[in-house]
């Protein structure tokens, strides 16, 4: 098995700073404050297709832009999953199907799905951290035979916060050799499952870091700062090798092409070199949080 | 001045060593001749770097804002520092018990390259501290050598078109670095209006219209509370005549609503624009 190497600065320029107009062809309400937007280029133009983990920039025409991981894509469409947190996302949430938006990308690096072939996989996500993870998970499921056992540990603070419920509770339950473990941080009247924070839940699940074939399981983790902190600590404690733990880093991004300057962590620009890093790499960074 | 400098060093050392204060705010020498730079230190040993000479051009009065959250600070204060501190106190930005004010009389400061008295010091009417916990040396009672509103009256006397040209030219030079805002003891908003995107007060273009919007709005925001320290004008890399705008508001308040000079004592009345009189000047009938 090869060592897992995350590629950096590998984005291929398709659209730099000038966006294309795309049409919103489908809006899925995921939770009260999360919606997914499926975009298609008008005039039958091919949409840009990203690698799993890459992101795009979607903007309101006449207003600002925001960075989103491409949470799903098809032949001629891409989808972004957007949580309402600020002014631009508020406007995005006000969009209707048929409206047009600006889109550019894809930017950033991607999950090292090639290097992971043959491994067992553990996906860990919290709240709105699932869309980036899902892009990788989805790839694994599409190439099911190439990967070993797959586990997903997903948690949210409320039932409402859980995204992609249909897949969580129906679709993925039927996948061969896959475990879906969902927990809530707090009791909820609509929830009779596990109530636990992610780290204790991981401890309880005790998913073997070596994997079934002993090659070392790959863990992919994405969530808020505290989930990241406690989750990675737990993984290391359980014996996961830092190079086998993958994550995405978040900074404020603007240009998406490594020029405008704001998203650097040390010498790395998250928009260009990242957002995917292994824990081994993160450990070597000088980080602002 | 060298006596004062010695006294400063020993008082600062005492205060830090006794634990009475967490940090001391003063000046130290810069790399170049006659250059000084603010010194903010918590280390007793570093107090020996403190200097006081005719080139201590920085008004240190805004620093307590960032520092008092972590405990009490001592600050060497001339007139401008002391008034800045009053400004911060009356705007409830800092608490009196968190700042120990060591007064120093000020003879006026000089430009390091020309050696001339700084414009702000020539205009200064309160060189000696107006509030302090202790005083080092004697008050200097330096009189202002420049009439307080001379500059305003000079500009007012210009024909309108010339005034327009003068200020348009000034605003055209502004690079919107916001040094004037950041150095100003009156500018203590948690988020400045220029950064408020939702309201969209002004955009991010650099052009005369937007620069003017920024400049005039800032004057309306701080003019009635301005302590006339002149730091905005000193720090402006483009040398804009910023005090001639601020002081215009003060001048008008002075003429319209009665003698007005803020931040001279802790129990000053509310700013002239947050109060009124039923029989104020009436021009709008």
């Amino acid at each position, binding site marked *: 098995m090869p060592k897992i190497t995350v590629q950096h600065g590998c984005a291929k320029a398709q659209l*730099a700073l000038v966006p294309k107009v795309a049409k919103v062809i489908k809006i899925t309400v995921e939770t009260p404050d999360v919606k997914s937007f499926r975009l298609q280029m008008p005039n039958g133009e091919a949409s840009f297709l990203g690698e799993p983990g890459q992101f795009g920039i979607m903007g309101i025409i*006449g207003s*600002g832009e925001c960075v989103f991981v491409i949470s799903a894509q098809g032949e001629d469409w891409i989808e972004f999953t957007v949580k309402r947190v600020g002014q631009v996302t508020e406007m995005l949430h006000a969009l209707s199907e048929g409206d047009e938006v600006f889109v550019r990308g894809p930017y950033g690096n991607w999950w090292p799905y090639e290097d992971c072939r043959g491994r067992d996989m553990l996906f860990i996500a919290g709240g709105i951290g699932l869309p980036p993870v899902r892009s990788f998970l989805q790839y694994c499921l599409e190439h099911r035979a190439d990967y070993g056992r797959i586990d997903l540990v997903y948690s949210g603070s409320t039932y409402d916060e859980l995204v992609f419920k249909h897949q969580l509770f129906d679709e993925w339950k039927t996948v061969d050799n896959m475990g879906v473990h969902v927990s809530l941080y707090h009791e909820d009247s609509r929830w009779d499952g596990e109530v636990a924070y992610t780290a204790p839940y991981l401890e309880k699940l005790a998913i073997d870091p070596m994997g079934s074939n002993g090659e070392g399981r790959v863990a992919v983790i994405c969530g808020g700062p505290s989930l990241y902190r406690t989750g990675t600590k737990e993984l290391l404690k359980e014996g996961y090798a830092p190079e086998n733990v993958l994550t995405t880093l978040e900074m404020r991004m603007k240009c998406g092409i490594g*020029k405008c300057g704001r998203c650097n962590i040390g010498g790395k620009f998250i928009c*260009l070199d990242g957002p995917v890093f292994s824990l081994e790499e993160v450990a070597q960074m000088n980080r602002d949080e | 001045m060298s006596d004062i400098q010695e006294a400063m060093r020993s008082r600062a050392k005492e205060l830090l060593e006794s634990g009475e204060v967490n940090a001391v705010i003063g000046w130290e020498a810069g790399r170049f001749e006659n250059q000084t730079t603010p010194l903010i230190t918590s280390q007793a040993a570093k107090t020996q770097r403190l200097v006081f000479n005719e080139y201590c051009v920085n008004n240190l009065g805004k620093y307590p804002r960032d520092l008092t959250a972590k405990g009490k600070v001592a600050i060497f204060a001339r007139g401008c520092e002391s008034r800045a501190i009053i400004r911060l106190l009356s705007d409830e930005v800092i608490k009196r018990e968190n700042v120990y004010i060591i007064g120093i009389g000020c003879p006026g400061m000089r430009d390091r390259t020309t050696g001339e008295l700084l414009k702000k010091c020539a205009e200064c009417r309160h060189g000696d501290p107006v509030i302090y916990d202790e005083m080092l040396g004697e008050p200097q009672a330096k009189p202002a050598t420049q009439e307080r509103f001379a500059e305003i009256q000079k500009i007012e006397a210009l024909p309108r078109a010339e005034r327009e040209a003068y200020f348009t*030219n000034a605003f055209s030079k502004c*690079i919107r670095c916001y040094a004037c805002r950041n150095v100003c003891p009156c500018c203590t908003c948690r988020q400045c209006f220029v950064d408020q995107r939702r309201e969209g007060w002004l955009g991010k273009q650099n052009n005369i219209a937007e620069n003017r919007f920024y400049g005039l709005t800032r004057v309306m925001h701080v003019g009635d509370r301005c302590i006339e320290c002149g730091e905005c004008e000193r720090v402006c*890399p483009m040398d804009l005549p910023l005090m001639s705008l601020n002081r215009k508001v003060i001048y008008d308040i002075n003429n319209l609503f009665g003698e007005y000079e803020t931040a001279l004592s802790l129990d000053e009345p509310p700013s002239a624009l947050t109060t009124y009189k039923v029989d104020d000047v009436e021009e709008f009938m």
Partner: protein
Amino acid sequence: MIIKKDRMGALLGTLAQHKTVFVPALIDGVSKFAPYREGLDVRFDLHNTKLPPKDLLFPQTQKMYRYGETAEGGHYVEQFDESSERVLFGVRPCDMRSINLLDDVFLTKGFVDEFYEAQRKKLLTVCITCAAPAETCFCESMGLSPNEAPDADILLKSCEDCYKVTAQTQKGEAALADWRDFLEDTQAQVLPGKTSLRLNFEGVPQKLSRMYEDPIWDEISTKCLNCGTCTFVCPTCYCFDISQENKMKEGVRFRCWDSCMFSEYTAMAGWHNPRPTKKERVRNRFMHKLCFFEERYGKTLCVGCGRCVECCPVALDITRLIDDIGASDA
């Protein structure tokens, strides 16, 4: 080849007939590169212009594209190209180097910035060496020489009453055709410049990379005002923001200078800010200049022009910081 100093005005007049020639000039007490015209107060004798020449290539406000609704109810995007044939005349070696650094930023690493590239291709650079650097100049400590500018298309070496002219690129060679009438084929003694301010930059980037958590950042950041003066006068600072102005259903999206000193710069939706205080912002600025950029491009993002040293309202001096880092035992 030399050109006499008293022939410079005539040369500029000729060149300005075909292209916009930016020359260092004093306008309203502010020195900057301005398009040459009759009566302009051209100053080749200034140490450094107060404002750097970066805004020729990377304007403070740059329109990128316009957009709006089409007749059919869809939207259009239309890119601007406002580039034009320009000559940057009389730039100093430090500023010349800064353009080289900006080239790295905008033209390499995956994406090419189309707006920068368009203007860069249409720019001819004419550099004048520094016979008498200012007291704040420290380019020699940053690996530059006041007497050389390898990236310039044309180099003018300062002599007593003339400049020695050398074309250093093909583009420069071709451009010299327009100069023919003003050049003389005589020898002249070049006046070498020397910076008085010397720093030991040796090992500083390496030390810095180990100093992320050093208390030095607390110390120097407390006096910083977090204004954008240093970044705006810096010839190499290139951070930008993207914004727009709308007129009903149409609008223009533009980019404009931003500053890593502003708290707004990194604030994310919902008020989280990865660089919440002055400390993080000051640290990022200096580490970016002296360390991060080096890791990424193998060059230091400071050319030693001394503008920030001159302009900083609180005399927060990068040269002292370099000294302090050099002296630290990290």
